[in-house]
């Protein structure tokens, strides 16, 4: 306890916001490191969009777009992009849940760091996973024959829109991760909640053929709006309202679920 003691003048009374930010960045580093070293997660993250692209394009494509799989690919890729990133947000809740059950968060909480840093670090680190999902989906889609019909900037804009939405959705996932007891529970519960949101929407098929009540749901579903905005940005068509409305949704989700998740986090840990 001599020269190298961390707090030679006695412990500090408060934590500066800057320290909190630095704590978060350290924990972001940890999340990214985990993604890099966990080859299974990385493989699953890459294989999932590839599988969905192949299945939807070649199983449903012919039946849906009058027999043209290439036409359907143009339609469905922005939808699968949204779906893939949405599924990837489940990983956020899963990892938080694992960290809590394994006691890693208790270690963090016994350290003199910002209370919100572990949560912020986990979510910032997960952005990496979302970016990987986007790149794989878009890259493999292009191998299959998808072409951006607008311009590269608009396409990047579509990706950013999806990422922004994912950053809001991951708070729902984080909340589930806090409320459910086991990682398995997070997976089951998360997927059960995700499926109706993904399928009862305009992500994969035009909603016109759905029954009236379902159309009403699908129209209001922010996934429909987000996919429509992405389609507009990638293959042309209306963008403005869709993009705007989907971002309002994202903001709404963030405003509701981020505080709930933070509260659940405080309680759980």
């Amino acid at each position, binding site marked *: *306890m001599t020269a*190298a*003691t*961390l*707090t030679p003048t006695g*412990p*500090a*009374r*408060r*934590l500066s916001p800057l*320290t909190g930010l*630095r*704590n978060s960045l*350290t*924990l972001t*580093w*940890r999340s990214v*490191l*985990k993604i890099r*070293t*966990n080859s299974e997660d990385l493989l699953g993250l890459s294989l999932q969009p590839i599988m969905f692209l192949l299945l939807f394009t070649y199983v449903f494509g012919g039946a849906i777009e009058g027999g043209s799989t290439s036409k359907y690919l143009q339609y469905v890729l922005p939808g699968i992009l949204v779906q893939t990133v949405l599924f990837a947000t489940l990983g956020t809740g899963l990892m938080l849940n694992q*960290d809590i059950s*394994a*006691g*890693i968060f*208790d*270690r*963090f*909480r*016994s*350290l*003199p*760091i910002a209370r919100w*840093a572990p949560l912020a670090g986990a979510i910032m680190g997960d952005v990496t996973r979302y970016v990987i999902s986007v790149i794989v989906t878009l890259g493999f889609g292009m191998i299959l024959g998808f072409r951006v019909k607008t311009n590269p900037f608009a396409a990047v804009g579509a990706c950013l829109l999806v990422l922004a939405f994912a950053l809001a959705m991951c708070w729902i996932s984080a909340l589930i991760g806090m409320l459910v007891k086991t990682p398995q529970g997070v997976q089951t519960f998360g997927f059960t909640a995700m499926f109706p949101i993904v399928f009862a929407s305009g992500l994969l098929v035009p909603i016109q053929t759905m029954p009236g009540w379902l159309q009403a749901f699908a129209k209001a579903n922010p996934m429909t709006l987000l996919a429509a905005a992405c389609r507009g940005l990638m293959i042309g068509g209306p963008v403005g309202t869709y993009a705007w409305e989907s971002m309002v949704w994202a903001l709404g989700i963030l405003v509701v679920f981020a505080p709930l998740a933070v509260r659940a986090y405080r309680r759980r*840990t």
Partner: protein
Amino acid sequence: MTDAIKAEGLVKNFGKTAALAGADLAAPAGTVLGLLGPNGAGKTTAVRILTTLLLPDGGHATVGGYDVVRDAHQVRQLIGLTGQYASVDDGLSGTNNLIMIGRLLGLSRSAARARSAELLARFDLADAAARPVKTYSGGMRRRIDLAASLVGRPQVLFLDEPTTGLDPQARSDVWEMIRLLVADGVTVLLTTQYLDEADQLADDIVVIDHGRVIATGTPDELKAKVGGQVLEILPADLSRMGDVAAIVAGWTGVEPAVATGGRELMAQVPSAAILPGIVRQLDENGIELSEFSLRKSSLDEVFLTLTGHRADDMEKAEV
């Protein structure tokens, strides 16, 4: 000497169960306090309150002079915590775990790296430093947990069952490391279900059961409290066991217990002064002995006397 850890009347309820029902603890700076009790006694709850992970429902506690509720941030700057629940990240390597904690504690990148290497070497983990912690053995795992709690050079260290589930060799390794820390002046609160562990390491012991402190003292004081010493007699002729028991009872005033499948007789004796008398009377009655010994009560017996059940029974019930 000031108390590095002090708790008064700690209460914590989980629903209708009282995990702590008014517990007092005190550890003078630079000493080891052993918190001894069976599973579910409230040991972990006490540690979680003292390390700011849990708010007490009643009572108050200070660590290093700081209130664990009001000055939690200061307390966190003084403590290190090792327990089954405060874990390291087993997806990361040993090195990266320690670097992460160093960075979180405000060390520069190079300082964190140096501290990590230093601790890994000290805990005999240098060879495994680059491997993910999930590939570590149980003993290595405890050592990296211990190393993780030392990155910030804590003044007060909480070790919650640091050797549970370890083999004897790994246990004594961990004990050795704890002794070295104490030699550096660190105050340690150690919880354990192992009576020999408390006996080996602790300066003071607090025995808790059902959330209450049922005894405090040094290991020797606790042993003395229960009747000091135990007399063990093994008659050469087992048929004379009844006579031996009657003679011993005459001197101690209590019917002795028969152990080891009816072959050995055990009795608490208040003082060694009565031994010559017992030996003479046994001899006068022509009873030959194959063994006659006097030893200090073990903490097992202390525990049995204090709680009315053996510590072992609780462990078995747990499994």
